[in-house]
């Protein structure tokens, strides 16, 4: 059972009355710009991320966040010396910041990947590509979601 408003208020009031810092912290069921950042840093490390070269095709307005088509492509010749090693997609406000990691190589021919994703809220989606020279390139897209996914109740 989730706490009722009354229980929450009495707890909050009790804590305030005692003048103490609340011991019960409500864990936010949401990735935040900070967790998005740390998820990105887990992948790229300390490397600099430049804007450009990556293209993210995603509808700017979606009615149903349960299935959102998305295509990521990268400007690259896809030769042995110059190709895309991986593509990483992140979100800002789902319960978890990761969406997917894709690993490619020179035999991919065309650096383009499509899938369908879930979005729990109106938010930013970030795609980052790692090239064979270990440079990172990114793009962000804003998506407005009218029906959220991920956390709704099950019937």
């Amino acid at each position: 059972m989730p706490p009722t408003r009354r229980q929450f208020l009495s707890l909050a009031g009790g804590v305030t009355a005692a003048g103490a810092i609340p011991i019960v912290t409500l864990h936010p069921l949401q990735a935040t710009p900070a967790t998005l950042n740390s998820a990105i840093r887990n992948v790229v490390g300390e490397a600099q991320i430049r804007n450009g070269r990556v293209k993210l095709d995603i509808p700017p307005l979606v009615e149903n966040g349960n299935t959102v088509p998305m295509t990521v492509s990268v400007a690259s010749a896809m030769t042995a010396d110059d190709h895309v090693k991986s593509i990483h997609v992140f979100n800002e406000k789902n319960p978890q910041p990761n969406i997917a990691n894709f690993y490619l190589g020179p035999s991919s021919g065309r650096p383009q990947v499509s899938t369908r994703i879930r979005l729990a809220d109106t938010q930013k989606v970030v795609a980052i590509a790692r090239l064979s020279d270990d440079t990172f390139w990114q793009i962000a897209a804003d998506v407005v979601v009218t029906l959220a996914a991920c956390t709704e109740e099950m019937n």
Partner: protein
Amino acid sequence: MPALINVPAKAKRGGVIEIRTLTSHIMETGFRHTVDGKLVPRDIITSFTCRYNGDEIFRADLFPAIAANPYLSFFTVAKESGKFEFEWIGDNGYSSTASASIIVE
């Protein structure tokens, strides 16, 4: 039929072909609750691999943010006739495979 695979039957040597895969899976996020407040445990596919005549040409790590019945489309260079093998691995020991053949001229 657990998976739908779309690979061209024939291709020119050196041509770039698109591979599309769709597999049936609930992709339960692990963040949903039932009406009586119980957390529904996570059950997702976490990894997808495509091999072309034994060589890995594409791999993906999937997270709960991938929609149910994961769809993936990617490209490869048609090098030689042979077989594509697809493998999905997930929570609770889930594993599923599929294959498709191609003739390269």
